[in-house]
Structures are given as C-alpha cells and as structure tokens.
C-alpha cells in the first residue's frame, strides 16, 4: 500500500518563499541558472571485485553502481537473451529519511525507471549474453547504491549505471564436462556489448518554475517532478512523473525541451569521463 509521505522535512517548506523570491530574479540558491545541472564527477572502476563499478557525484548526491555478472538461466520466453536486473538501495547512511529494511516504493520506483529506460531502447545487447541458448546465459546484476542523498537520485543513478556498464568486463569462465559454467576469479578484457547510451533528466516544478537537476531542498518544495530518459539521438526512451502534483500540457512540452538540452550536457560529461578512463588505462601499461 502506498501512503502519502509522512516523514517530510519541514525546514525547506518554511524557506519556500525565499527560494521563490530568488526564482523570480532568475536565480537559484546555489547560484545555478534554472537549466544547468550541478557539478558532476564520474569515476569508474572504483571496486576491484565487481565486474564493473562507478561512483557518481552530482552536487552532494553520491551514487555507487556495482555490476556482478553470473551465469544463470534465461527467462522462459526469451531463451536467446541474457538477463539484466536493476536494483536500488536507499542505504540508511545516506539520509535520515532512509530507514533500514526491504526496498520501499521509492527505491523500487527508482530501479524500475532506470531498468525500463535501459531495456526499452535495448541499451544493453542482451542477445550477446548467451552462453548456451535456452539453457545458460549471463545475468547482469546492476546494483545502485545511494550513499549520500541531496536530491535527484534518478539522474545520478543513470549516470552511475551507464558508467559502470560501459566499463564493465565479462568474467572469464570454462564449461565443465557436466555442462556447468565455472567462472574464474580473473576478469576478462571483454566489455559488455552496449548498443546505446542513455541519460535521464529530472526536472522539478516549483509553482511555475521548471528546475533541472533539483537538489533536496528544491525537491521538497516542488509540486512534482518529471524524469525523462533520452538516447544520444534525442529520442525519448522513458518517462515518469513522480511526486504528488500535476502538470499542464504546455508545462510538459516545456519540460521535454529543457530536458532534451540538459541531456546533451550529461552525455558530454559521461563521454568525457569515459575518455579519461581510457587514457588512464593506457597510461598504466
């Protein structure tokens, strides 16, 4: 059962009027304009034992992504495809609002929006993950770990997911005579086959202002949020209204335009981070 949130921080609501005064002057409290994301840092290969990993900082929000790849059985209706599973943990150390326990509706929604936005445009080539059709395939477990919460989990999580997927390496394995797949501790140099890159852009609507990449205070005072996923060609590959309020058609049109420009900023940062990753790898050798 989904219940109206009752653990709401009250201070940002009291400050709402002063935030609105800033917006009327075209400013935000952290001196950004309405359409720019916060400072972003993307690190990859931050963990040795995972097949792929990343740590993304979007302002003060921190999300770690870890990828484990294991042999498993394909789904009955897709015998010639590997399996991608996305999960998100709102780890209690990230915020006083996060409680220990099984995934709540917020973490399930986050994981499912990321999952759909990767799955529908076929971002990961699941057909390349077959070991023996109908019998053994690779299962990619993508776990998103929210470590510090200052708003906009969707965009940070998608950047972390993409950075980890793009730098992950398949395990080395051998097929035993029994047919079992034994993976060795070594990780191969083979990447996961990725068809396209995806980013999400979150906007908050505060009265009639649309703010890209809201921080936590901005999320709390917002009427509602939109998450729009884009591929590099500018197609919309996923979307979700999240939060209590509503939007007019004109507002949605505006959100799509604003978000599609912001998506280009995210793609640039993601690509830059991956380029420097390649350089570092070469430098090591």
């Amino acid at each position: 059962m989904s219940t109206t949130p009752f653990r709401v921080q009250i201070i940002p609501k009291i400050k709402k009027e002063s935030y609105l005064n800033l917006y009327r002057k075209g400013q935000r409290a952290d001196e950004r304009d309405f359409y720019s994301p916060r400072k972003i840092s993307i690190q990859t290969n931050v963990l040795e034992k995972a097949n792929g990993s990343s740590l993304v900082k979007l302002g003060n929000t921190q999300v770690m992504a870890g990828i484990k790849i294991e042999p498993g059985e394909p789904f009955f209706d897709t015998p010639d495809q590997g399996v991608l599973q996305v999960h998100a943990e709102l780890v209690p150390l990230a915020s006083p609002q996060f409680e220990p326990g099984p995934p709540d509706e917020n973490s399930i929604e986050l994981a499912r929006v990321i999952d759909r936005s990767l799955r529908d445009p076929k971002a990961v080539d699941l057909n390349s993950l077959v070991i023996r059709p109908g019998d053994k395939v690779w299962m990619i477990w993508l776990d998103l770990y929210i470590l510090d919460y200052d708003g906009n989990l969707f965009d940070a999580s998608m950047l972390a997911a993409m950075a980890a997927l793009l730098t992950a390496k398949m395990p080395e394995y051998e097929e035993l005579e029994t047919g079992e797949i034994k993976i060795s501790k070594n990780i191969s140099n083979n990447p996961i086959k990725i068809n396209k890159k995806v980013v999400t852009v979150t906007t908050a609507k505060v009265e009639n202002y649309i703010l890209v990449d809201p921080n936590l205070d901005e999320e709390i005072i917002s009427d509602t949020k939109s998450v729009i996923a884009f591929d590099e060609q500018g197609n919309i590959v996923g979307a979700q209204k999240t939060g209590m309020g509503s939007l007019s058609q004109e507002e949605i049109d505006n959100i799509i335009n604003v978000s599609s420009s912001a998506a280009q900023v995210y793609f640039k940062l993601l690509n830059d981070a991956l380029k420097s990753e390649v350089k570092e790898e070469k430098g090591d050798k």
Partner: protein
Amino acid sequence: MARPQRFIDDEGKRLDGRKPDEIRPVKMQVGVLSNADGSALVEYGLTKVLAAVYGPKESQKSISLPDRASLRVRYHMAPFSTEERKNPAPSRREVELSKVLRESLEPIVITDYFPRTSIDIFIEVLQSDGGTRTVGATAASLALADAGIPMKALVAGVAIGKVDNVLIVDLNEVEDMYGDADMPIVAAPDLGQITLYQLNGVLSKEEFHNAIDMAMKVINKLVDIEKETLRNSYKEAGEE
C-alpha cells in the same frame, strides 16, 4: 500469444477492428459494493477493475498528517486476472503502480478538509487485457466521487501506444506486449492537468507531444461518461 505480423491492416483498422484513435467499449458502474463508502467497477474491453474507497477515517498515529488527510492506495492484481496465475503477493510492479496511482489522485482529492484522517483506495484488477493502471485510475476517481469525498475534479486514464509506426489509444494486451511504446496517462480535463504519465518504450519528441494530445481527447470523453454514470446513480437513488 504470438507476435502478430502487423497490427494495422490496409484499411487502417487494428487487430480488434478499432481505428487508431478508438477506445474499447467502456462500461462504468458505481456503488457496486455494500461495505465500502464508495465503489466502482470499470471495464475497457476485457480489462475489468474494481475500486473501493474507505474513509476519511481516523488515521493510524504513525502516518497521521496534521494539516491534511493521508491517501493510502493499493493497486493489486487478482491471481486469476492474468493469462497464467499471478502470485497474489505484491510484486515490485504493483508497489510502483500503487505509488504512481496514489500520486495521480493526490492532486484531485481536497485532502486539507480532513486533517489526521486517512482515505483508503483499493484497486483490484479482476481481469487484465492491457491498460489496467489507467482503468484503475478511472475506477478510483469514480469510487472517490461515489464515497462523497470532496474533489477538485474527476480524473480518467488511458494508455497511448505505438504500433507499425502509428500512435494508437487504449492498448489491449497484444498491442501492449508487442508494440513499440506504452504510455499510460491520467488527467483531470476540467483542471487541464495531467496527474500521471509514464513511458515504456521509445518515442520521438513530436510523438510524445502528440501522444499526450491524443490521450487528452479520449480522457475528456471518459470523464463525461464518469459524470453521466454518477448522475444516473443519484437519479436511481432518488427513485428508490
């Protein structure tokens, strides 16, 4: 169920004979349950969804809000509603849909009339043939009105899809499963507000815009049917 070769024939008709912008036959009934404060049964084609509303009633302390009523929404599929039996334990999908459906109803219920209370909305999918969450939103809207809960407006829902490069309204299960996009939308036309949208699939920016436009036209009609249904129920009550 196999993937059809094509979804739209040479005459522009869909597999079940509908035009792209045509909704399935719609049935709405209110006051179908005796215990609930409000209830509704809504069908779009073979999709049948029952909704019940209890409240406003005194809230559990832990979730009670000092300035408004809490909404509690559960979207659930009956085990016999699907092709293969569905495990009745709530799935991750049902948890997410309960959340987005609650958020689609929050903007229309005038919650500040009833501080420290809760309004429970139960949405049970009895038979699923695509579009269950949007039919659920329509049923919940009717059940809330039937319970006499003050509302700013009624909402209704419909899903827009894309098959054979054509946008279509009110997907059935085959169109949902094998189509290129599924975009459920819930809106309150009297407020000009969209209270739920999701997109599962790939659309261009233009298609996204057109999909919402298409949905709004259909939702307008659906809300008219809701109003008619509510009016008739009061007429019947007056005659009794």
